[in-house]
């Protein structure tokens, strides 16, 4: 993560040169600095900084989209025009290993389509979620693993 420090320094330099010590100046400096580092990326072989930041941004956008979709689905079902409520408690075997991966996955699950993370087993191999539209528990399990967990692991590893 040394490139992050360099990137922040470049942003600081941009702010100093422009004498614009505010949020817009920082954002502009950070984006410009990132672009410069990206152009110079042959200098840093094996650096995962770019993939991580871009992956992080893409993940955030995807998550916001999912929050809208899920809030819409839950809202429709509350008013009585959406899918019938068919809750279930489902165990999901975890491929995520570190604390950060599991935390991010659990938080994302809570914020997205009709699912809510409830508990992680003490051996950290299983995540228990409560799903609201789980007529078929295996589909929910497969979708969570293939959709969310795959995205998180691809971004972080």
């Amino acid at each position: 993560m040394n490139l992050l420090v360099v990137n922040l320094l470049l942003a600081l330099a941009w702010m100093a040169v422009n004498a614009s010590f505010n949020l817009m100046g920082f954002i502009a400096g950070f984006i410009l600095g990132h672009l410069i580092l990206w152009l110079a990326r042959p200098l840093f072989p094996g650096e995962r900084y770019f993939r991580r930041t871009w992956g992080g941004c893409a993940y955030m956008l995807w998550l916001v989209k999912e929050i809208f979709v899920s809030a819409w689905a839950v809202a429709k079902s509350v008013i009585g025009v959406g899918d019938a409520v068919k809750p279930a408690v489902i165990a999901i075997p975890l491929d995520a290993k570190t604390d950060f991966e599991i935390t991010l996955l659990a938080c994302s699950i809570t914020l997205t389509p009709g699912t809510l993370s409830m508990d992680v087993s003490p051996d950290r191999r299983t995540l228990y979620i409560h799903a609201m539209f789980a007529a078929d528990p295996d589909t929910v399990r497969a979708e969570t693993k293939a959709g969310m967990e795959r995205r998180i692991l691809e971004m972080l590893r």
Partner: protein
Amino acid sequence: MADLIQALIGILAVGGAVFCLIAAIGVVRLPDALTRMHASSKAGTLGCGLILLSVALFFPGIDVVARAAAAILFLLLTTPVSAHMIGRAIYATGAPLWKGTGVDELKGTQDDPARRLGQ
């Protein structure tokens, strides 16, 4: 242009309020505590987030935008944490789930909090 932004602010505020109301209706209408939590954690977060977004658009200064962004981020960070805590507490109290609940793959396993806490 200014009028357009004002209209956008109004629409965002009403949209957020509608989602807040839907969350409340969900909390009243849905059958058990865990399903009610779905309504409050999703619709509630989105509603409050939209309203905070309209605040960020309304005031001109960068400091207000930063504070509103911080509030939205804080909401997105705390909602899952409190939902997790509440979910565990609900399950630990051993209150029966709604009769329409399908499978319960946690019940009776060694990870069942009702059992784990009893030890």
